[in-house]
């Protein structure tokens, strides 16, 4: 080992140093700002999470799996996963190995930031020893890995379908500059190291390249321009990084511990919302996922473009995009970095000024309390009920539009001998979720307070719901102290398992549709499937579970009109009828109404199926 230049410095390191210090300074200031934008409680929670070994372990796992190996993309498509992880992990290893080399060979240079990056220029190591050739080989190997990723990335720009993506993001100008400089970095590094390989040593890639190049470029003075070019490419990439989608590289490092600490989106543009926007890698997975994408013009309203417009502060487009969304949550479910597209949109809606605010002070919940609180007194007379359960059934607004569901539910409850009361027999107060979806938190809180009073004073042990929209808000926003909140699919699954409900199986083939709020919203996937399987043959749609397609009727969208939703509904029906089922089963009154408009076969709620398949 010998150092070629005693000074350990050449002017070509300056562009790199400039870019490096700029990006480090930018990210440091950004991180401090974001942490200070959190509410004091959230900030405390965030710092304390680092002391929790369980969360810390999860952080470390996520840093490796998400940032470097891109495990979620591997699951989506092998080629897409390889492309991203080869560039990220390969580059990471090159940086780490560079530092190890500096540490082993020239520990006195550790403080010189550019040394690990331009190591080959400054230091010659013999490749005839085991130790020398080992590092040479590793460096060349990971450079090859990165280069293979770059080749795939170039192919992907032209043929994204090979990577399992129908549509890919339209890059902005800064994204393109970042992209091209990123593509340039590694071939230039190969070239620079190739020129130097006969002095510094090299392995299969650099040494071979050196031999080839020397046949027509033997003048070693030519290597300086390539090292300059390599440094300049790094500088351009790092200078454009904060203004392009590549900001996701540093942002995701901070997002992972914040997500694991459980910090919620509280402000439209500050704190974790801002961090999520910057963590968006612009990969475009959300574009194909979006159910609105069936209308081509709507593909500009995917989460990736919302994030871009928030970065640009384009208020008109932010409003348009966030109002249009169905809030089905599929973009959040598929996002490889965990950008919560639905929550960010609700937050954008919440900062909109309204002159008129609803006022529910005239609504008297006492009459409703009187109607439901006769539970305790009558409870003891009913002998047949198991373990003293007192079920309060809240059908919800949407179920009032589909009275069949309520009727069947009551019938099933009677057949199973459940001790129940209706909470909204003659109409009740809305659960508050539609108001929350519109971003109007205060009126929603008022409704939640009134409903909480009614439920708490009823003496119920279980709150049964037919509508997943209600279910989500009851689970997330209500504080009901120990009252179990349960959807009718879960409840029937339990009744069947306990043998209180005897369902006759049949040969009818049912395609089960996962309602957005039940599946992605509350994570209920298996129970409804078990219930359907008990009554007939369960058929899956082309896409189901986490990737189920919204029916298009969602209350989430504020601006989509009746006609604009038609194509989305038809697309969702086609997805469900891929296997030609006899009927479509859903577990949401809103989905039932929406599908019912356009479906070519019966659309029924899961409770109606069970009611028809049970005797007395």
């Amino acid at each position: 080992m010998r150092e070629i230049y005693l000074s350990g410095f050449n002017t070509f390191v300056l562009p790199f140093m400039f870019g490096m210090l700029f990006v480090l300074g930018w990210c440091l200031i950004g991180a401090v700002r974001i942490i200070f934008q959190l509410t004091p409680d959230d900030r405390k929670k965030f710092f304390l999470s680092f002391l929790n070994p369980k969360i810390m372990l999860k952080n470390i796992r996520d840093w490796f799996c998400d940032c470097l190996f891109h495990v979620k993309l591997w699951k989506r498509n092998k080629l897409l996963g390889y492309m991203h992880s080869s560039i990220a992990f390969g580059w990471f290893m090159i940086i780490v190995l560079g530092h190890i080399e500096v540490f082993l060979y020239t520990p006195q240079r550790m403080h010189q930031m550019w040394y690990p990056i331009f190591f080959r220029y400054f230091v010659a190591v013999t490749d005839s020893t085991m130790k020398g050739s080992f590092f040479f080989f590793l460096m060349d190997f990971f450079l090859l890995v990165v280069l293979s990723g770059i080749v795939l990335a170039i192919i992907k720009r032209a043929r994204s379908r090979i990577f399992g993506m129908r549509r890919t993001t339209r890059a902005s100008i800064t994204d393109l500059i970042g992209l091209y400089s990123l593509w340039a970095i590694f071939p230039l590094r190969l070239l620079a190291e190739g020129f130097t390989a006969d002095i510094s040593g090299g392995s299969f890639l650099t040494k071979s390249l050196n031999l080839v190049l020397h046949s027509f470029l033997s003048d070693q003075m030519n290597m300086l321009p390539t090292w300059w070019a390599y440094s300049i490419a790094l500088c351009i990439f790092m200078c454009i990084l904060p203004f392009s989608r590549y900001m996701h590289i540093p942002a995701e490092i901070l997002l992972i511990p914040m997500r694991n600490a459980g910090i919620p989106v509280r402000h439209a543009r500050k704190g974790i919302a801002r961090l999520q926007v910057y963590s968006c890698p612009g990969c475009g997975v959300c574009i194909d996922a979006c159910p609105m994408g069936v209308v081509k013009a709507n593909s500009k309203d995917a989460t990736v473009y919302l994030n871009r417009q928030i970065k640009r502060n384009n208020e008109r487009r932010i409003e348009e995009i966030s109002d249009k969304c169905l809030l089905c949550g599929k973009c959040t479910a598929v996002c490889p970095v965990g950008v919560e597209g639905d929550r960010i949109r609700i937050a954008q809606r919440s900062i909109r000024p309204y002159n008129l605010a609803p006022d529910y002070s005239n609504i008297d919940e006492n009459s409703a309390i009187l109607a439901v609180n006769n539970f305790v007194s009558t409870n003891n007379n009913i002998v047949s009920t198991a373990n003293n359960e007192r079920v309060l059934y809240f059908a919800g607004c949407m179920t009032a539009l589909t009275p069949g569901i309520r009727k069947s539910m009551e019938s099933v409850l009677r057949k199973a001998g459940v001790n129940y009361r209706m909470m909204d027999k003659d109409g009740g107060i809305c659960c508050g979720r539609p108001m929350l979806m519109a971003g109007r938190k205060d009126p929603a809180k008022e409704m939640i307070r009134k409903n909480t009073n009614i439920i708490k004073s009823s003496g119920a042990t279980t709150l049964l719901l037919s509508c997943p929209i209600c279910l989500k808000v009851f689970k997330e926003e209500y504080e009901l102290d120990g009252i179990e909140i349960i959807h009718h699919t879960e409840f029937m699954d339990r009744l069947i398992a306990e043998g209180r409900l005897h369902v006759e199986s049949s040969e009818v083939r049912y395609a089960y549709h996962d309602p957005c709020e039940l599946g992605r919203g509350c994570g209920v996937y298996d129970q409804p499937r078990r219930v359907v399987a008990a009554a007939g043959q369960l058929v899956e749609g082309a896409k189901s579970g986490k990737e189920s397609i919204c029916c298009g009727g969602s209350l989430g969208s504020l601006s989509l009109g009746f006609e604009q939703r038609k194509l989305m509904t038809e697309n969702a029906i086609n997805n469900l009828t891929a296997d030609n089922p006899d009927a479509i089963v859903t577990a949401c009154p809103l989905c039932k109404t929406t599908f019912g408009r356009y479906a070519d076969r019966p659309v029924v709620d899961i409770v109606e199926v069970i009611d028809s398949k049970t005797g007395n």
Partner: protein
Amino acid sequence: MNGFGFRLSPSSAINLDKVDRSRFEELCSIEPDALRCMSCGSCSATCPAAQFSGMSIRKVLLNLQRGKEEEAFRLMSNCMLCGKCTMVCPRGINTRRIVLTISRIYEKEEKR
């Protein structure tokens, strides 16, 4: 005095020449669908807020058109934005968005 079970009401005649319709026209320019309402009453029948404030988007639109803004605001004050009126509307009017737009562009008398 009030032993007859009926009383004299003030005239409910509205002089449309004297009504300031600028707000309503603004509403219609943002939400052209507001004019497509045919007052069928489907929304009135399904509204869960109707039992509390007599809310019905049909009546709100009529009141705004006639300049009776305070009455419209009173009806609207109990709207819970549940969206049932939108789902039953035979004209496919996005009534939920109309409610939000009214809340945005109209102001209460005392605030103006």
